[in-house]
């Protein structure tokens, strides 16, 4: 049985940093087509800063999953810039408030996902179908809820990550109505939303971390 404890949460952030760095050029190219071409660089900088702080021996060790997510949230907010910083920051900050315990049950994962989506929606005022991060996070939270009765808590995360990947993929034909891509109108169709793509990568990293594979 998988345990989603503090060590998992820290592995999640480390894996996310490694995977986003590997996808940096892909994210930047997506953003160059529909935005201003800095999403890959910005997310790489932010997640690298999270890993640096997790490795900092001067900081007190984290005792709850929520403390890991809070550290990630405040770091991303102060290092990412653009729209992605406050969106990811708010998502993780809200998630941290419902995960203030040493490990997460299946229903804990569902609450975490729901809180994250609420944070993104509250901050970005977007809904599904507008070609934004919400198109990855909303189906992910719904899939987690459907999988809540799974025997292994990792399966709840897996369901969420798979739905996020499908949701991100589904943004390709959409026309953006929020964010900077919206200024391109029809020209935004045909490109995957960079924020939805990075969201899918980060949620997939949660599964990798749960499977115990290191970054």
């Amino acid at each position: 049985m998988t345990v989603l404890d503090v060590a998992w949460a820290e592995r999640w952030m480390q894996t996310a940093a490694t995977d986003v760095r590997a996808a940096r050029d892909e994210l930047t190219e997506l953003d160059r087509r529909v935005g201003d071409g800095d999403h890959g660089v910005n997310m790489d900088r932010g997640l690298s800063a999270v890993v640096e702080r997790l490795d900092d021996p001067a900081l007190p060790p984290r005792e709850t999953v929520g403390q890991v997510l809070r550290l990630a949230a405040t770091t991303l907010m102060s290092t990412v810039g653009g729209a992605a910083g406050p969106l990811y920051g708010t998502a993780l900050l809200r998630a941290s408030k419902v995960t203030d315990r040493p490990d997460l049950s299946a229903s804990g994962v569902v609450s975490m996902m729901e809180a994250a989506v609420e944070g993104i929606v509250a901050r970005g005022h977007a809904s599904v179908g507008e070609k934004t991060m919400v198109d990855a996070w909303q189906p992910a939270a719904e899939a987690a809820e459907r999988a809540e009765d799974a025997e292994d808590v990792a399966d709840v995360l897996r369901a969420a990550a798979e739905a996020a990947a499908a949701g991100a993929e589904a943004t390709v034909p959409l026309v953006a109505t929020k964010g900077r891509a919206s200024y391109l109108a029809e020209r935004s169709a045909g490109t995957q939303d960079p924020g939805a793509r990075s969201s899918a990568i980060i949620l997939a990293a949660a599964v990798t971390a749960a499977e115990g594979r290191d970054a």
Partner: protein
Amino acid sequence: MKKLLDDPAQAVDDSLRGFALAHADAVEVRFDPTFVLRAGGTPPGRVAVVSGGGSGHEPLHAGFVGPGMLDAAVPGAVFTSPTPDQVSAALQAADGGAGVLAVVKNYTGDVLNFETGVELVEAEGIEVASVLVNDDVAVEDSLFTAGRRGVAGTVAVEKIAGAAAARGDDLATVRALAERVAAGVRSMGVALTACTVPHVGRPGFELADDEVEIGIGIHGEPGRHRVTASGAHDITQRLLEPVVEDLGLTAGEQVLLFVNGMGGTPLSELYVVYGRAREMLAERGVEVTRSLVGSLVTSLEMQGASVTVLRLDAELTELWDAPVRTPALRW
């Protein structure tokens, strides 16, 4: 890429250090997190006016910090919004006990980072009001996009809000005046060339020798449409007409006419555009009672210009005329 920079990653900080040394009478630059504060801070009991956004638009916003205009400015990386911790640090440092007005340009990143920063300081008991500047008429389908962008009209909002705060208006009044300016100001811009963000190293878009891009924002992004370059008269008409129509200006009204350079266009050409725009407004019976010409809201070294019109009344005119003492604007 040829630029007068040493390390592109340090471009913003290096520039701010020089700026601080050159204008020590008006401003003080703080780092970790980065923001620019009016020298000596906001006078106690006065409302503070704070703005910010990506760098690369200089002198906006830091060049407008000083008595009669901004109390603090928050510069982000080039064309990247400042982060919430910068915003909250600036709001906190600027507060003189009477609350803070945040002037935010309508770009998704600026809006989200300011909202988050405001949320952080409100928890500390500081009263913050916000005004959104969205003067760019190039964005036509504002219901289906993130809305009209905030561009050169920001200067008018910052100047008038700053003057209202300086004369002792309370936060609600300063905000209402700023909103009146935001509601009555419209802009439209043109690019003759693209600009190059230092850490990217290549131009944001390509323009042929005989093409101009109409309806640009101020972040090197492409505009609404591309037309053949056709001289100052024709281009001025393409910029001014949508502005006048959107404002619904009629004969007998008084306005401020602001011709802004994008960074790489000589002042002499801006005056050519100003002259044409002035003639066109006169033909419509619109009276230009205040004027501003200069490169104040730029896109790095982009060649191009924008035309901004602000509908004036007696009170807004008086506030526009009030003394201002900043690095980039003083009278």
